[in-house]
Structure formats: structure tokens, C-alpha cells
């Protein structure tokens, strides 16, 4: 029983981490808080569904196409809108929020509501681990997330583009003097964040169904994880995801499932009181947060 709770808590934490990864990446590099993040997540899920069921493409192809479309949409959002309001935090927040709202509510208007909107699991199988059944999809989530984290680490530490990403994040002006095009890097960062949202959706959605409300939930969860972990810090993100993930799963088991969201709220408020910059929010801590 307890072992099962722990296993599911770990999986839950990893799901949260995967959800917040793209948001955190975009913010960490370009300083843009992409409030359309939840909308991109849902956009990719519906795109996969449409490609799969209405156009009849094979599953892997439709998933791949939807990830590409979402990345393209992210880049488009940056080039058409965000570029013009770059640096004005208020305008960025309102513009991304407006775009997210438009995308999500458009899906609601088009009638994409109901339980038939689901994506199939990758492999329909389950394993018996430490006295609990764990299905293949959840194991895949763990494996894919670990792979993504590792790939991101290698990308940002050992490729020239990744190093440029970090350079822009550390000091945009100095990076400019080294010939890094900050607009282009920012476009890529929004696009990559969108692609990560799409990957997260592809992997996580088969566990439930696609709904517009999920888009807002994902945004809220991503924000919660990022606020607790400290924005722009990957280490903090992982720790925060585990804190919230375990807290949620334990309240779920021992108190009641209605209270899970309350725990995240309480966690956010407590962390903000004790340490306003989050667990590992070192980056520009003094300038931005307090």
C-alpha cells in the first residue's frame, strides 16, 4: 500500500516536472512568461487527435506532426506578437494570456468537449511492481522525461546553440557583442518551450482525456512548480515537482482527493513567505523578485 503510494507519487512528480519544463525553459532563456503554455499543450493534443481520427494518419506520424505544428505556432507567436512588445513585462503577460485564451476558447467553441477526445496509449500493458500495478504508459512517462532532461542538459552544456541559449539568459547585451542574435534565440526558446509542451501533452494525455479545462490546469500546475522551484532554475524545478507531487499524492491517499489543489496553494504561499525567490531561484534574484 505504502510502496504503491510512493511509486505513484514519483510518477505524479515526474508528470508535473514534464508539464513545467517547457514553461521554465522559455522563461529561463528569454524571460518571457508564456501564459499561452496551457493552450499550446491542448493545441498539440487536439492536433494529434484530428490528424489521427479525422485524417487517418498513423499514430507516430500524427504525434510527430503535432509536435512540429506546436513548435511552429510558438515561433509564430513570438515573431508576430511578442517581438513587438519584448521587454515590457506587462504587455508580454497580457499578450500571451490573450493568445492562450483565444486558442483554448476557440477549441471549446468548435465543440471539442467530451470524453471521446482521447489519445491511445503507446503500449497497452501493465507491470506488477512492489505490490502495485503500474501501466506501461506511466513507465514510458518516467523514461521519456528522464531522457528529455538528459538531452536538455547535454544540449545546453555541450552544443554551441545551447551555449548561446545560456549566454542570452545570463547577459543579453554581452551575448549580443559575441554575435548571438537574441531575437532569433528568443524565437527558438519560445518554439522549444512549445515543443516541450507538445511532448508533455503527447505523453500525458493518454492517461486521461483532452479537455479545454485541462489547458488552464496545466498552466496553473506549471506556474506552481516554477514559483516554488524558482523560475529559470532546472534543479529547483525538479525539486519543486517532487515536493508538490508527493504532497498531492499523500493528501490524496490520506486526506481526500478534493484537497489536492489546496496543498499546492498552501505550498506556494508558505514558500513565498519563507523564501520569496523559491528553492533555487538564484538567477537575477535580487533584481526581479523582491
Amino acid at each position: 500500500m505504502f510502496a504503491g503510494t510512493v511509486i505513484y507519487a514519483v510518477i505524479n512528480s515526474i508528470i508535473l516536472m514534464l508539464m513545467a519544463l517547457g514553461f521554465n525553459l522559455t522563461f529561463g532563456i528569454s524571460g518571457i512568461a508564456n501564459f499561452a503554455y496551457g493552450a499550446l499543450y491542448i493545441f498539440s493534443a487536439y492536433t494529434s487527435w484530428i490528424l489521427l481520427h479525422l485524417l487517418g494518419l498513423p499514430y507516430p506520424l500524427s504525434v510527430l506532426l503535432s509536435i512540429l505544428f506546436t513548435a511552429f505556432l510558438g515561433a509564430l507567436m513570438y515573431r508576430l506578437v511578442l517581438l513587438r512588445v519584448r521587454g515590457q513585462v506587462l504587455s508580454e503577460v497580457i499578450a500571451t494570456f490573450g493568445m492562450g485564451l483565444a486558442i483554448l476558447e476557440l477549441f471549446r467553441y468548435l465543440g471539442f468537449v467530451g470524453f471521446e477526445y482521447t489519445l491511445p496509449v503507446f503500449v497497452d500493458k501493465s507491470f506488477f511492481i512492489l505490490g502495485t500495478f503500474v501501466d506501461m504508459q506511466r513507465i514510458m512517462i518516467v523514461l521519456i522525461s528522464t531522457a528529455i532532461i538528459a538531452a536538455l542538459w547535454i544540449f545546453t552544456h555541450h552544443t554551441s546553440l545551447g551555449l548561446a541559449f545560456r549566454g542570452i539568459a545570463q547577459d543579453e547585451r554581452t551575448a549580443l557583442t559575441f554575435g548571438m542574435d537574441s531575437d532569433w534565440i528568443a524565437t527558438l526558446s519560445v518554439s522549444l518551450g512549445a515543443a516541450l509542451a507538445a511532448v508533455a501533452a503527447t505523453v500525458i494525455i493518454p492517461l486521461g482525456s483532452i479537455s479545454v479545462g485541462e489547458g488552464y490546469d496545466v498552466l496553473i500546475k506549471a506556474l506552481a512548480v516554477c514559483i516554488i522551484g524558482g523560475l529559470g532554475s532546472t534543479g529547483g524545478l525538479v525539486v519543486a515537482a517532487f515536493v508538490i507531487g508527493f504532497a498531492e499524492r499523500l493528501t490524496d491517499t490520506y486526506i481526500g482527493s478534493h484537497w489536492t489543489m489546496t496543498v499546492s496553494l498552501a505550498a506556494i504561499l508558505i514558500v513565498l513567505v519563507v523564501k520569496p525567490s523559491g528553492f533555487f531561484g538564484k538567477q537575477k534574484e535580487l533584481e526581479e523578485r523582491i
Partner: protein
Amino acid sequence: MKKRKERIDRGIKARSSDIFALCSWKEMLYLSGPRLLPIIGFLLLPPFLGGYWQRVMLSVAVFALLAISWDILAQSGMVSLGQALFFGMGAYSAGVLNHYLGLSPFVTIPAAAILGALICTILLLPVLRLRGIYFSMVTLIIPIMLVRIIEASKIFGGTEGLSGLSSLPSRWVELYVAVIALLCALFGFRRMLASDFGLVLRGLNDSDRSVTNAGINIYRIKIQALLLSSAIGAFAGALMTHVYMFVGMPVFALDYSILPIAAAVVGGPGTLAGATLGACLLVPLSEVLRGIGGLRIVFYGLFLVIFIVALPEGIFHFIQRRYHQFDRWVEVDK
């Protein structure tokens, strides 16, 4: 030959900017016209409207109050994405006072405005140390989570909410309470923003470091701004509770967060008049668009984006400029 646009103040603006304005009716009208227009419009229009459009006007006033409350916070460097928190807290305070203590609406509405403001301020107290988007993020999260808490703990009627609350004596009272509150808030807080206190508030937005350097406790100022702003929002919520005779989870809905922001952005942030103008345009527009249902919110989203990118100053500043200045094309000097 290249030309550029040159903007010049109108003669009447130059003349009416000092004491000599009092010498001529025309100049006095020039000064007071823009101010009298909303007062006369809001006070005299209701009797000419049908029952349905009176309801629309009521919601114009309520959303304008929320937009003003958003604008005051945004002026002080706190961009809230959760105006529904203030609205909902006021609504629930009024509902609870009325349902459990049986107080009359004329007591509960002012009491809820104060009580709601206090609760919101205490709830946001830990967040006040945050700046910029961190503040926005937390304000976005709180109302959504409060809905979950009410759902989970089943307090105050849980998912069903509290119904059968007492109503105000007549729809005229409802409408005029809202309209008069709006006019008082609009002109009162415009005065406040023009005063020294307002200067400090706007200083927080520009550079809170400098305000700290001037020896002013910024957290104290922020708390005051938050208290004022949430009191306006809570008042709007309390009023609507008694209009609908119901309070429930919908008071924390996203509509109450989005429409005020849209109104303030479209109308022009920074002057509370812009927020009011935005509400006057958007709320009737959304009534006209009621036929297209859910697509309305899509339009709000797009409006936000278009105005932020294309006309970031907002409609009010645009009109204000045309009123005070004219422009002409002149040759660019070599």
C-alpha cells in the same frame, strides 16, 4: 521629399490651461465637457433605457469598477490576473453576512467591501514582496484554487452556493448604487492618483528602488494600494450578489478577471477614465455578440493581443490627444 507629422496644442488648450479660462464660457466648457459627459451620461441615461439595457448598464458599471480596481493596482506596479479574487471575496462576504446573520443589503454591501478587502489583502500579503510577473502568476492561481477549496470543504453551500439572499428594494436602486459608486470611484481615485500619494504609487511602477531610496516604505504603500483596489472589487462583488440574490463558485470565474483587464487595456491603462471607457465599449459589445456564444471570449483574447501590439496607449489616450492637439505634415529638415 520626406514629410513628418507635427503635433501642436490647440489654441483653446493653451488658453484654458490657466486662470483666464474662467473668462469665457467656451473655454470653461472645453475644460468641463469631457468630465461632465460621463456624469450626465451615466445619471440621465437609465430612464430612457429598456429593462434589458438597464441590466447591461449595471454590468457596465460593475466591470468598470473592476477595471478601475485593476488599473490602480497596475499603476502601482502590481499586474493582477485575478481580479475575480476581489470580486469573489466581496460576493462571498456579502452572501455570508446576509445568509447567516440576516443583515440587510445596505449593511452587507459596505461591510463586505471592507471585509473582502481585508481578506484579500491578508491573503496577498506574502505575495506583495514579489514583483512583475511573479505577482501576476500568483494572482492567477489563487481564485482558481479557492474554487477548489470551496468545492472540497463544502463551506458556504459548497458547489450549490448560497441562494435566496435578500435583494435591493428596486432595480433603480441597484442601478443607481452602481452608477454613483462608479462615478465616485472614477473621479475620487483620479484625484488620488494626481496627489502626492498617487505620485508615490506611480513611482512604484517606474522604479521601486528609487522609491525605497527616498525613504518610503514601499510595502506599506503597496498594502494601501492593494486595500483600496480590493475594496472597489469587493464592492462590485457584494453588489452583484444582492442583484443575483445568489452567491456561488461562478463568482471566481475567469470572466471577472479577463474582462476588466481587457477593458483597461482597450480603453488605455494609466488613466482610470480609460478603464471606464473600455468597459463602456466592451460590455455592450459582448451583449451584442451574445449570439455567437463561446466565441466571445476568443474575441476578448484577440482584442487584448491586437490592442497591446497595435494601440498600446489605448483608445482614451488617442481621443485625449485628438482633443488637445491637431497635427499637420511638415517637411523634414535636411
